[in-house]
């Protein structure tokens, strides 16, 4: 429970340090006539327009007092005198400037930026779509990985030189090369090769398929190592006892070794899931807009890195924390009868 409070505190602090930007402007020296100032506004990003709705009105304050007007509005001010002009709108950070005007007509634009909270809300749906892809890819990849990894992991321990060799080569290759390289190899490297083999142009593999296949194959190798280690961690006496009773190797594996290995494998499998949740962001190189990539694209659009990466981190935490809890709970429950 304490940990949750701590997370809350950290996130709260981050909100405080998120800067509210306002550009300064150099005032002109005054003259005799009145200064006629038309105050207009710019909202960035203009959420109302982006969503096809109505933008909130910007209230104008002069020297701290509400004028009762919303922008655009024209004021008559004393030239040369310094005013504090402030624009306020719901969900946006105030823009306020200390300013004085020369006589004559002026246009003055207040520029209000979405405040951090509203901005995060604004980009949240896009990030959630990314998170959905991340989560989906991870779940599918680790699920396939568990199937592949269990078979390959068993393949590494059974008494068959050929199977050992193939399984060993697979795990060595995958674990010995970066996931990024595997994605590039599969998605960009394979189609021309397939094309060459089939005598046609490049045989295209859709990015989503490439992503699922490479992540699954990658996860499979890591799960295989987990499974192998799990099987080998079971006391030799278990296999011997089973065989001495007349069970075949397969029966012993299935009824005696694997059920015990399964329990030991749960915590590292949980780690594998969390690792994959983070590593899956590498599929962004083949234009999969998962959570991290969505964050990057939004950053390139709005240049508000603090809010975006904070939101991305929070979403990741929302995916990993409950999961770590679940694994811990499973682990505890599995302890009985071991």
């Amino acid at each position, binding site marked *: 429970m304490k940990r949750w409070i701590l997370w809350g505190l950290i996130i709260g602090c981050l909100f405080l340090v998120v800067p509210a930007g306002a550009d300064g402007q150099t005032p002109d020296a005054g003259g005799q006539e009145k200064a006629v100032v038309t105050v207009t506004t710019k909202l960035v990003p203009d959420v109302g327009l982006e969503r096809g709705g109505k933008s909130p009105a910007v209230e104008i304050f002069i020297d701290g007092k509400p004028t009762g007007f919303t922008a655009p509005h024209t004021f008559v001010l004393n030239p040369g005198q310094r005013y504090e002009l402030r624009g306020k709108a719901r969900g946006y950070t105030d823009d306020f400037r200390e300013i004085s005007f020369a006589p004559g007509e002026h246009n003055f634009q207040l520029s209000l930026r979405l405040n951090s909270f509203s901005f995060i809300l604004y980009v949240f749906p896009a990030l959630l779509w990314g998170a959905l892809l991340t989560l989906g890819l991870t779940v599918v990849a680790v699920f396939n990985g568990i199937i592949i990894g269990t078979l390959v992991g068993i393949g590494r321990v059974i008494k068959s030189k050929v199977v050992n060799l193939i399984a060993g080569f697979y795990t060595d290759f995958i674990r010995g090369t970066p996931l990024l390289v595997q994605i590039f190899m599969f998605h960009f490297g394979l189609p021309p090769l397939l094309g060459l083999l089939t005598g046609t*142009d490049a045989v*295209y593999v859709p*990015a989503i398929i490439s992503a699922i296949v490479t992540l699954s194959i990658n996860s499979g190798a890591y799960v295989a190592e987990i499974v192998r280690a799990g099987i080998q961690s079971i006391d030799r006496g278990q296999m011997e006892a089973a065989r001495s009773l007349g069970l075949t190797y397969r029966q012993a594996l299935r009824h005696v070794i694997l059920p015990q290995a399964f329990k030991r494998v749960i915590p590292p499998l949980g780690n594998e899931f969390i690792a994959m949740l983070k590593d899956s962001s590498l599929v962004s190189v083949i*234009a999969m807009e998962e959570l991290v*990539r969505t964050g990057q694209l939004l950053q390139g659009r709005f*240049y508000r890195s603090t809010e975006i990466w904070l939101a991305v981190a929070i979403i990741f935490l929302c995916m990993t924390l409950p999961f770590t809890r679940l694994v811990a709970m499973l682990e505890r429950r599995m302890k009985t009868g071991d």
Partner: protein
Amino acid sequence: MKRILVGGLILVLLVALAAGCGKKDAGVLRVGTEPGYAPMEFQENGKIVGFDIDLIEAIAKEMGREKVEFIAVDWDGIIPGLLNGNFDCIISAMTITDERKAQINFSDPYFQAGLLILVRKDNTTIKDVEDLDGRAVGVQGNTTADLWLTDNMKGVRVVRFKGNPEAVQELKNGGVDAVVADNAIIMWESVKDPTLKVVSYTPFTVEQYGIGVKKGNDQLLDEINAALTKLRENGKYDEIFKKWFKTE
């Protein structure tokens, strides 16, 4: 609780330390660039080369700098990198836009560009921009190609890659129907790879490249602009232009 406080303190100290470490060597101009955009900036034999590269080197020379240090970065990290002070300026075929101007300052325009469409040679259906509607179009994420298509062509499925080379490879493999990027780049790719072709040689946007400088660093900006003007006057600019764009 105490341990957390101490940890937080150490963190703050580290951040302060890192911020204070932005030491600068006056003789060196540190330039951020994303070298995946031939012929403007790209890697050749382990070196970064291109029009932009030659230009900034000439500018630095004009400014009296002894050395130019190139820092290769991802496109997505190029403006944050400048803002963090990882380098002094950006030259990376960057179009001057309002959104970017809100973040950084730009030099005077040094190159006029516009978007073109690249397709596979056998493609006969895409004849102009409108034909992109309903198709998958590869772009580099957060380039003007991405922003323009996203804002102006709602029917296009914009496939955003990290770099332009990946987008072109995807086009060759058949994953997208077209690639949209700046004219110089599209033309370069079409010349380099005979299986690709340019749809029309007239760009459908007009854009200006600028050299990006951190806001407040007006001295550097003025120096760059002065050098740029000088290079245009003394013919060096044309020399560099001719070197990279032989015809016209």
